């Protein structure tokens, strides 16, 4: 664990702070509004609390947006600094995740009817922690294999799909915890499905682009490399999820959620363990 006393480091810490403040503020707003509308209904204190809750909610939104703005600056700064799209290593991938969580959060709520807005703020802060404290931020020049038009789309679609799958996992956990939801939004089980529906095509595209790129760079579209195999394993978990949900989804909705959580576990292994552990040396070792 190491504190980064650099402009890049400060931008990351500022983003984490903004996301965490947004999370706490929105959570307090949520609790305050809940108390005001349920326990202190039609009382003066209740009205005040409700008003306070609305203000805190708005403040949380502003802080979240502010965090996103800093994350964009941070990503742009890194791009300028390294001279190529910063998606080369884990540090840059996590930086990107911390940035795209906000637009995906808005998109999911507005167009897909999926909540989890408060959790997204926390996810944003959590994915930036490794970038801020653990991962090596030393800029690197692109090795010949990474100098391809496929570099950005291959990594970018994976990053997007991972965020969707992370949101799906949150919904799956909510379902297992028996949590209810806003009337305007989908139930956690439906929301899990919708998030996986959004993320799975991107996961598939990432796998196929990677395979096509492997053929161009190394001569084989499938090299049986540990990263490829873990990538395939995570894809297969979601294939299994779709089949299981189609076959038994209504009878065993809780098991659907377990599939979704298992998918995220395998994604974490693919993203972190394969790159950081010496157990899996392979063609993707430069991505650490």
């Amino acid at each position, binding site marked *: 664990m190491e504190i980064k006393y650099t402009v890049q480091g400060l931008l990351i810490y500022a983003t984490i702070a903004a996301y965490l403040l947004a999370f706490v503020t929105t959570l307090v707003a949520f609790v305050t509004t809940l108390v005001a509308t349920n326990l202190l209904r039609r009382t003066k204190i209740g009205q005040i609390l409700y008003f306070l809750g609305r203000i805190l909610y708005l403040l949380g939104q502003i802080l979240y947006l502010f965090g996103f703005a800093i994350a964009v600056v941070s990503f742009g700064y890194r791009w300028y600094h390294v001279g190529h799209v910063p998606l080369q290593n884990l540090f840059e991938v996590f930086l990107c995740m911390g940035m795209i969580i906000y637009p995906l959060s808005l998109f999911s709520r507005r167009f897909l009817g999926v909540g989890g807005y408060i959790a997204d703020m926390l996810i944003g802060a959590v994915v930036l922690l490794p970038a801020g404290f653990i991962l090596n931020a030393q800029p690197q020049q692109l090795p010949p294999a990474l100098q391809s038009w496929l570099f950005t789309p291959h990594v970018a679609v994976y990053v997007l799909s991972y965020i969707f799958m992370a949101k799906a996992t949150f919904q799956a956990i909510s379902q297992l915890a028996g949590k209810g939801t806003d009337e305007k939004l989908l139930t956690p089980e439906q929301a899990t499905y919708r998030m996986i529906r959004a993320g799975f095509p991107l996961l598939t595209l990432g796998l196929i682009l990677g395979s096509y790129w492997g*053929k161009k760079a190394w*001569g084989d579209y499938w090299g049986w490399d*540990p990263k490829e*195999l873990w990538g*395939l394993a995570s894809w297969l978990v979601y294939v299994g999820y779709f*089949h299981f949900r189609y076959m038994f989804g209504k009878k065993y909705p809780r098991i659907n959620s377990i599939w979704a959580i298992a998918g995220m576990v395998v994604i974490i292994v693919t993203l972190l363990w394969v790159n950081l552990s010496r157990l899996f040396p392979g063609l993707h070792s430069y991505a650490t």
Partner: protein
Amino acid sequence: MWVGLALIILLFFLSIYGAFIGAVRAKSFVNRLPLVVYWSAFTLLLITALAVFRRLVRVPSLLLIHLGCVFILAGAMWSSEAGHKLQKRVFGIDKIPIGQMKIYEGYSDNRVILENNEEIKELPFYIGLKDFQIEYYKPAYLYVQTWQDQGWKVPVEIGAEFSLGPEFGTVTILRAFENFKITIEGGNRTAIDDPQPGFNPALEVQLTSPEGEVTTKYVFERFPGHSHSQDKFLLSYHRVISEYISRLRIIEDERIVAEKDIEVNHPLSFSGYHFYQHSYDTEAGQYTVLMVVSNTGLAVVYAGYWMLCLGVFWHLWLRHIVAKRNKKHINGN
């Protein structure tokens, strides 16, 4: 469908097992007989599912997804080493599945060492190497480090003086060599950049202490850590490779029929084979090593990729977007 789900779960565990044993052993593992049976069973099951479940044919996106998987599996089996052997036995098509070629600058060759290193086969044409080149990112760097782990990254700019602070003085890079050699003329040793074949990049570095004492050092890229215990600094020379380039020509019936500079990500395709930049002569930069791969079955795999991708996006994204729009349209009316 139960069997399908079971095969998916089995493939999941096989993938994880493969990841633990490493790429080379995993490749050999998936080509063994039990796994060949597995791949065949999986393909047959998909075809059976298409024949039995009418929904898979009625819904075009599901048809694309499942047919795409059949194409990928069939193409992969067809392009495998076993697939090549089968093609030779049944159709008499004798293609090299995968191998390597070592070609020296100014020479041409058609011999391919097969992947198992046991056999050499010949291509029906020759590949000539006009030139092999390595390009580096600029600037290169000289790393100066004290024994107390204080360090500086000095860009290689000939003649420019770089300050290491009042405590350590300055460093100036006087010369950069591609192929450093020492000649002895009249008892004097002279460092030269030898134009003869060879590869020994080095820097001539002048260190000036705060007291004005000047020392000259040679720093070698290929021999980092070359220093004496009385030296004040550890010096190392680093260049980052940006590209490997092999300038190739294809010779058929003693005529040049094609020319291409191949790089990583930019292979050469000719007469059913792909040629990749694979390795090179690290000692003298005199030869290149190409990987030769047959393109048999590749079009089938790519067709499968397209179908799978289109099917998945159609089924999970487009179908729902269109349905939502239609619903809005109906509500609007």
